[in-house]
């Protein structure tokens, strides 16, 4: 090959090798970057008044009087929206009217019980009110004005019945009269359309502002509040203004998504102006403000991680890892000490080293199997503990997993201590044991500490071994080591694939993974700094 060709090849090679490292860095940034960005949005974001309400009610955080003032301000701004909807609904929402009829029937039944009427009268009145309720419901769901009037007339026949006077049942008749008046005025054909569109609209409004001020508070926490984050609110606003439909463009071809303006669907009615109004005034209705939710790392979460933070997960991870460290450090350091100081290169030592390397290569899921078969099913019952997954079993499994890492790094640290230290001590007459304990070990301590931190970070990130030995997705904060616990690693897996609500709160999904990654990165950074200082001290002094 010509000389210039070889030189060019050489330069190309240099560039390629450089590129491979740059590729690595790019991959790292591509993986970590968006994750960190989205995860940090769990901690720093624009929170609305709903967020502050939620914090106060669920976690007891925040200034009560300030939240009340803000809530009042927001509600005044939202009132217009509710009024517009209510006015529209009175002629259209037959489901709500039917529900009210059912409520009246039930309340009437309770009232009759309290009155203590004789059995026959009670049964007769009850079945009569049930008939009235059914007629009303039929009237509400019918679309034929003739039918409606028939049903209403039947109901109103009993309006003069003395047994119903002054009771809850008189509301039946008021409803019937109102309905007859309203039904005479609206277009019954379009009513079904309006009804389903209205139902969707109300869902979105509920998502934005929370339940209607006059409704009962829902049982589940996730439905009690509106949009707690401004970005959530913006998404809902988009869904409010635009309805996405899948329409067929060509037969047999995939459908195409188009967006239809909801204002058009309600054209000509009162609600047409609602959408523009909400868009313009959303800020006043939700009062967004930059929030730094540092308590994310401390708070517990509502079920499904819908609200709240990852406090218990962090606690669980810390408990598991620290407990496993307690088990592994003595064994690791002592083994390393023996291998570094007393071992000769004979068969037994070679077998031990081979076993350490084997242990390092065992897949983590096999450790999980071993933990299940040995610790949970065999070891724990030996000591009388229940044969269930628990923190103790999990940390013992993790300790075995991380033993080789500990032994290797401790041995490296002990060997790195210069011979001169040891020789000086021996020259002064100390026994080899004493030398080790008072001279070598303290000098190797920073290195051993580095090893401990590296093991910690490895153990914190492991999921497979704790899948069947200690981890659960939903559960209380553990109070003893014989309970299972939530951890950051198991929780991240759960949030990524198993949890139903997680997809609706991506900031929490990413937040948990980012908490784990940040924890591990901090530990690793600590180890790197420590190691460079040790390196400098032992070599460069």
């Amino acid at each position, binding site marked *: 090959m010509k000389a210039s060709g070889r030189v060019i090849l050489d330069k190309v090679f240099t560039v390629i090798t450089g590129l491979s490292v740059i590729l690595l860095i790019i991959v790292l940034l591509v993986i970590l970057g968006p994750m960190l960005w989205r995860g940090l949005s769990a901690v720093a974001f624009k929170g609305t008044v709903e967020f502050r309400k939620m914090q106060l009610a669920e976690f007891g955080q925040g200034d009560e009087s300030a939240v009340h003032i803000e809530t009042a301000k927001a509600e005044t701004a939202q009132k217009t929206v509710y009024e517009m909807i209510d006015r529209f609904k009175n002629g259209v929402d037959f489901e709500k009217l039917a529900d009210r009829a059912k409520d009246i029937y039930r309340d009437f039944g309770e009232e009759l019980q309290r009155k203590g009427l004789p059995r026959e009268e009670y049964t007769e009145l009850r079945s009569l009110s049930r008939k009235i309720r059914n007629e009303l419901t039929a009237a509400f769901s019918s679309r034929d004005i003739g039918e409606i009037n028939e049903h209403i007339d039947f109901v109103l026949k009993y309006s003069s019945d003395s047994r119903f006077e002054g009771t809850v049942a008189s509301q039946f008749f008021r409803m019937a009269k109102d309905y007859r008046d309203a039904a005479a005025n609206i277009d019954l054909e379009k009513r079904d359309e309006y009804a389903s569109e209205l139902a969707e609209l109300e869902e979105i409004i509920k998502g934005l502002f929370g339940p209607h001020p006059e409704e009962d508070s829902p049982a589940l926490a996730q439905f009690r509040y509106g949009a707690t984050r401004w970005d959530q609110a913006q998404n809902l606003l988009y869904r409010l203004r635009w309805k996405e439909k899948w329409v067929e463009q060509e037969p047999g071809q995939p459908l195409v998504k188009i967006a239809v303006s909801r204002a058009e669907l309600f054209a000509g009615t009162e609600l047409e102006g609602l959408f523009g109004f909400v868009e313009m005034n959303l800020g006043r209705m939700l009062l967004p403000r930059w929030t730094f939710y540092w308590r994310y790392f401390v708070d517990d979460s509502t079920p499904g991680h819908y609200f709240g933070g990852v406090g218990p997960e962090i606690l669980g991870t810390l408990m598991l890892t620290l407990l496993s460290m307690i088990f592994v450090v003595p064994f690791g350091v002592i083994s390393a000490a023996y291998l570094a100081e007393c071992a000769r290169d004979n068969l037994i030592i070679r077998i031990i080293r081979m076993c350490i390397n084997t242990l390092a290569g065992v897949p983590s899921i096999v450790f999980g199997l071993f933990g299940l078969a040995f610790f949970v099913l065999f070891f724990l019952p030996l000591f009388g503990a229940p044969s269930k997954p628990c923190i103790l079993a999990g940390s013992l499994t993790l300790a075995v997993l991380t033993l080789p890492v500990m032994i290797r790094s401790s041995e490296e640290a002990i060997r790195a201590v210069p011979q001169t230290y040891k020789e000086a001590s021996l020259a002064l007459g100390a026994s080899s044991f004493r030398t080790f304990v008072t001279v070598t070990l303290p000098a190797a301590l920073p290195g051993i500490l580095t090893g401990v931190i590296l093991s910690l970070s490895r153990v914190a990130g492991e999921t497979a071994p704790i899948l069947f030995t200690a981890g659960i997705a939903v559960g209380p904060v553990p109070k003893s080591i014989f309970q299972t616990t939530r951890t950051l690693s198991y929780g991240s897996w759960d949030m990524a694939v198993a949890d139903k609500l997680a997809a609706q709160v991506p900031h929490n999904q990413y937040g948990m993974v980012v908490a784990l990654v940040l924890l591990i*990165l901090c530990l690793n950074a600590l180890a790197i700094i420590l190691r460079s200082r040790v390196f400098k001290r032992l070599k460069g002094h």
Partner: protein
Amino acid sequence: MMSSNKNEQTVAAAAGFDQPLLLTYTQDIKGFLLKHLGRIVLFVLTCTSVLAVFLIFLFVILEAFPFLNRFSIVEFLTSTAWYPSAHERPEFGVLALIVGSIYVTITALVFSVPIGILAAVFLSDMISFQVRGIVKSIIEILAAIPSVAYGFFAVLVLAPWLQKHFGFPTGTNALNASLLLSIMALPTIISVAEDSISATGRELREASYALGATRVETMFKVVIPAAHSGIIAAIVLGMMRAIGETMVVWMASGNASQVPHPWWDLSQSVRTMTATIAGDMGETEKGSDHYRALFAIGLLLLVMTFMLNLVSEYFLTRAKKSMGKS
């Protein structure tokens, strides 16, 4: 004279010099016992790692043995039908799973070995010492990221991206899992390969440059062949890491227990042994055939990684010996 002798004697007695400096074991039984007992205790503690390996093998074999006894091992290893919970006739053929694991691992190596060796060459030969420290730290960070985070990335980011840009019918497939496994195996390969390339020493390189070779020629014709044992060990270690990885393949590979049809079609879903164990274990009752079959798969994994370990040990000792010679 008498008094100076007496003085000497008292001084000597006070300093404990009435005894010889090196005591035999009969004179210092306590020290002797302590020293040797201490060593024995330390030795026993060191043997915990041996004990651990032994226990792992023992318990996995114990749990898997009844299954292996009842079902034919040949059928276990060569049938691709994995229907462990079928009501009438459960089938336990793990060939598709073994093929899945190996397929994903080898594809991961195809991606990571060239990049790994190039990066190792870059680290050892082309940059200064300080920059090397920084780059090594970055590689350590890559190694430290937990597998769950990689799995997260695979499912939520990479899978839709693969679907959109390559038009694959499904984003969770062998390619997805291989890409991620190659990223996870890279740090291992780079660090071990870099160690062995650096260990070849300056003389080899200087001799080659003296003969007029360019850097690329030196690398490919002299240094890498000299370090070949270490590099092979690095590849084998990377392979061990990839085969043993669970969470990422569980989330990213689609878990279809099939052998991909045209064997080069990476866009099909596969299932690995590790994902099968992780996925199925939570729902099987202890002691059932399915449970024991999963332990049998675990045993298979253990045997495979153990053999890979032996191979890598062999190459590492060869590397050390050749370094020792030169």
